[in-house]
């Protein structure tokens, strides 16, 4: 069922069993999981069904740290959320991503990868992916000529990705609207979260829209699913009862923001031509060069992978951090793909010797958890009166050392196999250089800010993604990641959301049993 919150009487009271705030990948995945549950689910979406600059403006903020994209452009504020412009790259987090690593501060999830596996399998379906298979052998049995480089797989191995084409705004619109237990409210922006007088439970949410309507939402359970930055903003901005905001007793909300660093790091020149399909194709299962758990442990580095782009093309590509400093993000796609087309065209006339055997490495690497990398709120307010964010993206020496070492390890393995040679980008050549180049891209992957830890002094949410101290408030999505892995975040955030969803169903059932037996 769909209700436009602009068209119902002002000061309406909306009630349900469960309220999900945000209809992106996390929120929609959870809502779909509740269709047969017998509970009434309120799904709140701040935007409508289309891109609207006025709504995107609500996401504007100020950046103070490492150069970042305009904040209103990296997230989409309408039904389907950021899946409206994502690339669809999916791969599960690795076993090591869940482990406590003595060289990675604040690392370690409350559970292992194994515990998340059943939810990964379900997330594959939600994202319209293929089978939950990420071993190269599986794909080699289905397709010829997926040949990895002849490197020592105990050190460098081909990590597989699948591609999702699911834009939730189109794929699931009808399913959600036609589902009777799901009450989707569009143009329903949460502006305040109100707790009970003991600050132990959430009582209601206040919502507003640009038409000046304000409503109240009451439910038994609440799930924030607006993305890592907005979830933190909502908690911090809900400060009428507690100065520091809700769930922020230990000053952790907004901290430990993490991105994936995606930067050109070097060149690979192969001695002989090699079928590169496995590494260079797009839209079908493909691999990146990954460092094994054992090698990461030996070198004490973060988890990162190297993707390959033919150098003849890559050398004309403008770094996204420079290209996408635009105000109107509808133009971002045009700019990005325009630059790609132009680069491919220029590459055709490149006669550099052996250029056909040369590739650019682009790393995607986790960012070390860092409390100074954070989201806070400032004095400026958006059109609905919510404080805007101040965003401080902050990188560490471990981030840069790891990038250098990942490339060095791959360079050494290429040498051992006498298969090719690697050239490092200038900014990686001096081991004492901790500066970052202007082309330091990020993946539009927002993680951290409401990190998961069972100790309230170390995390905002517990292993079930429940906010510590608030019995009926949950956070869904990548904001809960304690560490950020090398894989793109969406598959894992959907898996995590489905895990949360299952927990919540079981919690509600337990409560019913308790009530029935008392």
């Amino acid at each position: 069922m769909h209700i436009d919150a602009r068209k119902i009487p002002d000061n309406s009271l909306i009630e349900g069993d469960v309220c999900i705030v945000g209809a992106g990948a996390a929120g929609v995945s959870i809502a779909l999981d509740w269709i047969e549950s017998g509970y009434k689910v309120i799904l709140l979406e701040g935007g409508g069904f289309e891109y609207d600059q006025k709504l995107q403006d609500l996401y504007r903020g100020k950046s103070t740290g490492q150069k970042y994209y305009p904040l209103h452009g990296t997230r989409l504020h309408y039904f389907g959320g950021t899946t409206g412009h994502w690339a669809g790259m999916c791969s599960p987090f690795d076993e090591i991503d869940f482990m406590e690593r003595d060289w990675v501060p604040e690392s370690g999830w409350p559970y292992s990868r194994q515990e998340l596996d059943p939810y990964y399998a379900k997330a594959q379906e939600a994202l319209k992916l293929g089978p939950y298979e990420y071993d190269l052998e599986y794909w080699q049995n289905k397709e010829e000529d997926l040949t990895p480089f002849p490197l020592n797989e105990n050190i460098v191995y081909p990590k597989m990705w699948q591609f999702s084409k699911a834009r939730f705004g189109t794929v699931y619109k009808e399913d959600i609207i036609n589902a009777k237990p799901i009450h989707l409210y569009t143009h329903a922006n949460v502006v305040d979260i109100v707790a009970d007088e003991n600050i132990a439970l959430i009582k209601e949410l206040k919502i507003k829209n640009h038409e000046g309507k304000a409503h109240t939402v009451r439910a038994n359970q609440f799930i924030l699913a607006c993305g890592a930055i907005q979830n933190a903003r909502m908690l911090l901005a809900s400060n009428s009862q507690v100065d520091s905001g809700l769930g922020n007793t230990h000053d952790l909300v907004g901290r430990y923001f993490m991105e994936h660093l995606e930067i050109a790091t070097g060149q690979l020149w192969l001695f002989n031509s090699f079928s590169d399909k496995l590494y260079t194709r797009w839209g079908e299962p493909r691999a990146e060069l990954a460092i094994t758990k054992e090698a990461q442990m030996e070198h004490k580095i973060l988890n990162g992978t190297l993707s390959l782009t033919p150098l003849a093309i890559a050398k004309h590509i403008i770094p996204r951090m420079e290209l996408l400093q635009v105000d109107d993000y509808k133009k971002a796609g045009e700019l990005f793909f325009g630059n790609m087309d132009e680069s491919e065209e220029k590459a055709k006339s490149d006669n550099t010797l052996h250029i056909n055997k040369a590739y650019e490495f682009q790393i995607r690497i986790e960012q070390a958890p860092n409390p100074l990398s954070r989201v806070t709120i400032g004095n400026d307010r958006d059109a609905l009166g919510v404080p805007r964010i101040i965003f401080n993206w902050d990188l560490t020496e471990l981030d840069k050392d790891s990038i250098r070492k990942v490339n060095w390890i791959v360079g050494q393995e290429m040498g051992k196999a006498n298969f090719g040679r690697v050239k490092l980008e200038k900014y990686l050549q001096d081991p004492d250089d901790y500066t970052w180049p202007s082309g330091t891209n990020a993946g539009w992957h927002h993680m951290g800010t409401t990190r998961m830890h069972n100790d309230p002094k170390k995390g905002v949410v517990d292993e079930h993604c429940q906010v510590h101290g608030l019995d009926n408030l949950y956070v869904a999505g990548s904001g809960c990641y304690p560490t950020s892995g090398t894989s793109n975040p969406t598959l894992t955030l959907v898996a995590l959301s489905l895990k949360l969803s299952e927990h919540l169903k079981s919690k509600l059932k337990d409560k019913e049993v308790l009530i029935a037996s008392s």
Partner: protein
Amino acid sequence: MKRRDFLVGLSGVAVISVAGTYFYSIRDIDYDPVIAEPFFLSHIWDNESILDAGKKYLSDASGEKDVQELVKRIVKNNGANGSESIQRINEQIADDFENDQTVLVDGWILSVTEARQCGLYSLIQKT
């Protein structure tokens, strides 16, 4: 055995040339000039790139400024003559990577042996 051109047989591979003698004799060391030819790098670099890398390596490597020293370090105890030496040097290059005997030359991660080959090549070109 004339070693004027190297790697001629490999299609698409850069051809560089060293002086047309059978063997070089510098002071008390005889060596086959082929050892100044970085076999693998010649698959991806032209003459000029090898020269450049050689010069850069020499400018950073202390105590490796003359031909004699470089030849000694490249051939070690394996002897400097004959085609077998090429095979041995190529194996040595892989061993260098295996044993962290690598250097960064203008951003390139190279085996120290092949970096020395480049250095030797650049010195020979001067003589």
